[in-house]
């Protein structure tokens, strides 16, 4: 089986990650601060935070908070930042993990301002400025790398606009953390949501968010933390953002994944995945019977095509069941971008590469596509 669905979840997981998970499973169980024994789980959490902080480009190591993944992170961030949805500028490139909470969370309910993208999924920073100038906005929420086209947005420019107009800047790094440089401090991001199981190579059910210190925030979840148990009411606003028993095994595995990524280096990963997507795009350009959605030189490790004679879902089915190649078809849980790509209602066939893929696998895919189309 050849796996090109890393934008959904990375596979196979590195041996280091599996080993760390099993070691944590077999080790003495304890919560983050609850251990009375010799467990070093607190150290595992802290080490993981430090590694993730490096991968997210922030020096605020202690402002990384664990969740079950990006979707939970984004829900918690939107609920906790308490910015009404109509005061939020977001974009057509967003995943439903952003759109659905913005449109449905009762705490902030309303319609956000949704900026368009171009036919490649790229955003124009000038449109953010135009929207910010109107004076009603209080926050910008934007996807670093599109999970549909791989379009990488001009985050530094958008962050600059957010600061100039005094807006909170929330970044969805679900598709970029681990495979593209994420620069929370450089971009002046106030919050960054990430998931552990995509390019961070960790297990599903891991992830979290970075929240800059000083950003007003009221958590949507409260519960046990193992600290100061007699305190029931938080009167000083000094909230605890990780409550309940944490996913220690998952975090141990995520920490091992982050260590591996740091040892390889994101630039090296980026270089390899760029080579793979570059060959993929070159091969697709030469194939009749499909339209390549080319998101340019800086494209992330995701490539979408629109087959002209078959539905994307049929092409994905043939690739998987006749050739043993796993891709993804449809709207990829990002419904609005397809209106700008011209791919409504069927969506696209998405090929997303990962660190473990090889150029030979790309050639096999191109050969299969040539036979089918």
């Amino acid at each position, binding site marked *: 089986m050849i796996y090109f669905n890393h934008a959904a979840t990375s596979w196979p997981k590195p041996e280091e990650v599996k080993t760390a998970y099993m070691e944590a499973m077999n080790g003495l169980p304890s919560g983050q601060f609850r251990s009375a024994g010799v467990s070093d789980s607190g150290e595992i959490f802290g080490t993981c935070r430090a590694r993730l902080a490096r991968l997210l480009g922030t020096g605020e190591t202690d402002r990384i908070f664990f969740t079950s993944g990006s979707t939970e992170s984004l829900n918690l961030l939107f609920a906790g930042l308490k910015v009404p949805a109509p005061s939020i500028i977001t974009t057509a490139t967003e995943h439903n993990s952003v759109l659905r909470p913005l449109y449905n969370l009762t705490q902030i309910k309303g319609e956000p301002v949704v900026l368009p993208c171009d036919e490649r999924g790229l955003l124009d920073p000038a449109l953010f400025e135009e929207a910010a100038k109107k004076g009603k906005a209080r926050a910008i929420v934007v996807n670093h790398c599109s999970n549909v086209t791989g379009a990488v947005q001009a985050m530094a420019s958008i962050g600059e606009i957010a600061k100039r107009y005094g807006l909170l800047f929330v970044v969805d790094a679900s598709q970029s953390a681990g495979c593209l440089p994420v620069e929370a401090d450089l971009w002046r991001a106030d919050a960054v949501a990430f998931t552990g199981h995509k390019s961070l190579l960790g297990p599903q059910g891991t992830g979290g968010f970075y929240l800059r210190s000083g950003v007003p925030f009221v958590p949507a979840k409260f519960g046990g933390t193992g600290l100061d148990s007699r305190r029931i009411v938080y009167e000083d606003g000094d909230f605890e953002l990780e409550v309940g028993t944490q996913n220690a095994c998952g975090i141990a595995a995520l920490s091992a994944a982050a260590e591996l990524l740091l040892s390889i280096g994101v630039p090296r990963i980026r270089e390899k995945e760029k080579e793979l997507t570059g060959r993929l795009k070159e091969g697709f350009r030469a194939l009749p019977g499909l339209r390549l959605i080319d998101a340019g030189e800086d494209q992330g490790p995701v490539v979408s095509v629109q087959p002209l004679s078959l539905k994307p879902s049929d092409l994905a089915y043939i690739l998987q069941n*006749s050739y043993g190649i796993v891709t993804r078809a449809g709207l990829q849980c990002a419904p609005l971008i397809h209106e700008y790509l011209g791919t409504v209602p069927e969506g696209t066939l998405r090929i997303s590469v990962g660190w473990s893929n090889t150029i030979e696998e790309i050639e096999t895919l191109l050969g299969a596509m040539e036979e089918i189309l």
Partner: protein
Amino acid sequence: MKIVDRRKSLEACTESGWDAFDLLTEEALSDEDIEGMRGTGGSFLYMKQLKKPFFKIESHNFVIKGVRGDSFFRYALHRDAMEGLEAFVKKFS
């Protein structure tokens, strides 16, 4: 062809807005089995030139697709047309 089991497809998102089931057959699908399903109606696509030929039967409220030689195929349908699936499974059980 005999359908022996059905499983809700994990790829319902791919068949956007539809319910999809993978129907498991007693034996590998043959040309005869595929031709036999054509009687269900709808347009018929059969890509025999592929090493593992792909077929699709499609009407306004259902899609049947699969690969010759596999012991399963997919049946996707609108949520208000479940009786079509029941009748289909009954016919081939």
